[in-house]
């Protein structure tokens, strides 16, 4: 029995909905290859990219082959993480197998396609490992082929019939992959794949969750830690009665972690037997194992992905070149487009090297240490956007100017510079996975660096030194570009605007043969005092005369201590006829004026 394109589209959308709903549960199982807690999200985003690619076409006029090609193209270009890349490879194999112009696909054709999908996924994954999504793909393909030869039933019926075998395989993943057993979980990618297949089979009602509410990894580790502490210190006294009551009352059905369930069962036995040293040792050992598995030494810190468009690039040669940069390398190749996934410690150098080979786009760099911390921490960060720009600055006027120049998060400080905690909270408030951060004073950079180490997002620090550089950042930042592209263009243009700043002396002093008296104004250009005067009109005019070259626009930003500069500006307009003058309230504390030349 055959299925048509409309049915395929509907079931894939249902499967995506289900996967999307269950992604956080899948994330909580993610321990292999790195416990960065994003398997569910990566699979959902890959599928979303594939379906979005379909949306721009009229499905009714597409053949099955065109549909699958288009879906696969979207999956390949939008694949995220190891799990998403393997899923995209599976789609690639299916797409290579299907050569249909008709509007439907038979079970035999689907069987061959699944086989090919499985073959490509195994072949193009570096170090294919059993006990992962790959095993589930193999079981699906083998079982489907077997059932096809036995009956000519409805496709959905056949898939539904395979689900128990897939569930059995999922349960066995800890036996196949020792790290899963130690962590007390089934494989997250395999679970994601099962959810996908369940969604496809229509077995589930649309709004029913297939996974019961479970404890997070943070909760599991905390309970295990309580048990260990209780047992190792033999704290049977009054003070710990609360902990004992809590542990003995933990509902085992809400724990999806097999090892923790065993630990609690052993603990309950221990309470009944008392002074059983061997049992206590086993509990401590199991608890330590659980904790170690979820806190591994992450060898390669950054999960790096990008698309490279390059003609005349040999895939095998390229693969050999990249393999020395890290592990978990997956390269998906289609025409002259390469989608690369790798775990590495030098993502930026890698991108730079690859830039010499072709055009790079859609870059993504995830700090897996931070993601891991987020996974096992109680204080979780929930992101609602991919990228944000956070500026730390002095002056309400400047804050308003920045807001008008695009989407930006701003932390405004007054005379006292911000603390690490304030910056950390400002970072958390952006709720962005990737953040570009910059301040208007180089003295704040150490504070920013400390705050960055405490935050969970991927953060790029722009080492800016003044407010004019922040304006420049706003000219070049785009929320539609990724972190890498944005920081590259921002750094290239950071010093594009020529400016000087004017302050008032609070005491007499001399610098570079210029004597400045208390109360005088002095003008600074490129960190050097170049002029001083008693009256502000004079110093502004003199500063402009000294510095103006071929620029046509002069902007004066006046600080908190100054009134508006209308009178000064009208005088200047008379003197410099071909120059446009603009004046804005910056509200800064330290400098009376900033003057820019553009």
């Amino acid at each position, binding site marked *: 029995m055959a299925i048509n394109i409309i049915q395929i589209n509907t079931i894939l959308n249902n499967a995506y909905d289900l996967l999307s709903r269950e992604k956080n549960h899948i994330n909580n199982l993610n321990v292999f290859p790195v416990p960065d807690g994003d398997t569910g999200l990566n699979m959902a985003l890959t599928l979303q990219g594939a379906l979005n690619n379909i949306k*721009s076409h009229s499905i009714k006029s597409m053949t099955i082959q065109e549909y699958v090609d288009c879906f696969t193209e979207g999956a390949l270009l939008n694949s995220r993480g190891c799990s998403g890349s393997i899923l995209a490879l599976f789609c690639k194999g299916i797409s290579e197998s299907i050569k249909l112009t008709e509007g439907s696909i038979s079970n035999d054709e689907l069987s061959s396609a699944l086989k090919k999908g499985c073959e490509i996924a195994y072949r193009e994954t570096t170090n294919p490992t059993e006990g992962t999504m790959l095993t589930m793909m193999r079981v699906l393909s083998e079982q489907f082929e077997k059932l096809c030869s036995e009956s000519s039933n409805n496709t959905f019926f056949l898939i539904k019939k395979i689900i128990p075998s897939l569930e059995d395989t999922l349960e066995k993943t800890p036996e196949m992959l020792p790290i899963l057993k130690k962590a007390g979980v089934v494989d997250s990618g395999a679970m994601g794949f099962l959810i996908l297949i369940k969604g496809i089979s229509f077995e589930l009602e649309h709004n029913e969750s297939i996974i019961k509410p479970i404890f997070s990894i943070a909760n599991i580790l905390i309970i295990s830690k309580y048990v260990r502490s209780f047992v190792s210190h033999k704290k049977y006294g009054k003070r710990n009665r609360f902990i004992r009551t809590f542990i003995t009352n933990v509902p085992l059905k809400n724990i999806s972690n097999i090892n923790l369930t065993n630990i609690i069962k052993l603990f309950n036995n221990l309470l009944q037997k008392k002074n059983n040293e061997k049992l206590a040792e086993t509990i401590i050992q199991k608890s330590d194992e659980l904790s170690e598995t979820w806190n591994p030494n992450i060898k390669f810190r950054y999960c790096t992905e990008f698309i490279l468009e390059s003609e005349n690039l040999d895939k095998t040669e390229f693969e050999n070149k990249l393999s020395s940069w890290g592990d978990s390398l997956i390269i998906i190749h289609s025409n002259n487009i390469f989608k690369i996934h790798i775990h590495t410690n030098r993502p930026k150098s890698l991108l730079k090297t690859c830039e010499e080979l072709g*055009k790079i786009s859609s870059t993504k760099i995830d700090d897996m240490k931070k993601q891991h911390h987020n996974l096992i921490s109680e204080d979780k960060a929930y992101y609602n956007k991919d990228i944000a720009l956070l500026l730390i600055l002095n002056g309400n006027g400047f804050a*308003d*100017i920045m807001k*008008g*120049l*695009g*989407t930006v998060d701003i932390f405004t400080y007054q005379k006292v510079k911000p603390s690490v905690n304030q910056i950390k909270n400002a970072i958390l408030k952006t709720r962005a996975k990737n953040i570009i951060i910059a301040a208007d004073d180089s003295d704040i950079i150490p504070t920013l660096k400390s705050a960055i180490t405490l935050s969970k997002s991927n953060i790029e620090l722009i080492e800016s030194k003044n407010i004019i550089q922040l*304006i420049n950042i*706003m*000219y*070049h930042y*785009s*929320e*539609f570009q990724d972190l890498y592209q944005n920081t590259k263009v921002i750094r290239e243009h950071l010093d594009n605007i020529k400016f000087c700043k004017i302050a008032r002396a609070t005491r007499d002093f001399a610098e570079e043969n210029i004597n400045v008296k208390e109360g005088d104004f002095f003008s600074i250009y490129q960190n050097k005092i170049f002029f001083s005067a008693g009256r502000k009109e004079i110093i502004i005019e003199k500063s402009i005369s000294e510095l103006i070259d071929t620029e*046509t*626009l002069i*902007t004066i930003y006046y600080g908190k201590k100054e009134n508006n500069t209308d009178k000064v500006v009208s005088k200047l307009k008379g003197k410099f006829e071909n120059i*446009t003058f*603009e004046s*804005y309230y910056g509200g800064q504390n330290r400098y009376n004026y900033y003057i820019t030349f*553009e």
Partner: protein
Amino acid sequence: MKKKVLVITGDNLGIANKQIVYKDIAYMKFPVIINDKEFKESEEYTAAFLIERFKKEKVSAHTQALVKGDLIKIVEAAKDNYDVILHVMMGSNMSAATFQMCEQVRKEYKDIIPIINIDSKQVISGIGSILLRLIDLLKTSDDIAEITAKITEITTNTFTYLCLPDLGFLQRGGRIGKAKSLLGSILKIIPVVGLLGDEADSGILPIGKGRTFQSANRIIIENIKQKIQKYKIETVKQIVILHIEDKDSLELKNLEAQIKSELKFEKLIFGHPRFCEAVHTGPGAWIASFSLK
């Protein structure tokens, strides 16, 4: 025998009709509503007329989709005299209503005369540029399948940049899209927005923020240089530039100078602003379209 091909297009081309050297061409006029009264382009109703009214009377204006009856009249008159009709249209993502109407007409006449609707994915001089390229192709071949395939490639390689001192006009016309992020600046900026052939489904995109006309032009040049590098183009096939108010403006002169000193190109055409285009650009705007192939 050579095929007889009628070309249909709108009056939102960023170039004057006299700049289009092709005799079998029919123009459709977009209705412009000014203070609830309908106007169409004429000797009296021009871009300059509307810009002046924007400045002096603060009128409100918007455009409407092309009228189906106007298109049917042209098709009826052509059906017995031509082998095929090629309709070069504004980007379907800019006016879905116009695109749907033209598709309806194509279907209604499918057994009478073939009509091929070419979605330029562009506005203003971007459409004009694609039209001129189509006419170049028609002069060398009458293989319609080959021409339409080539013109599809040209649309993905055509890039239009608009420097719009007041984005409010684009916003009121409902076409601001992602460029919304450039609205409402306290600092006077010249927003540069674009319709990029290789990202045409994204609609109008924010490209950059210039503080002076020189820096806005710099943004255009840097952006098109990236495209030239990306697509490995040696010589840009055709560039159309225009200013909505003043062809001798400093903005356009500076852009011309930057193009001449930094880009290799075959043709540089000085466009002509049209009545309905002024509705969306407002005063002071200037535009550049680049067809790389």
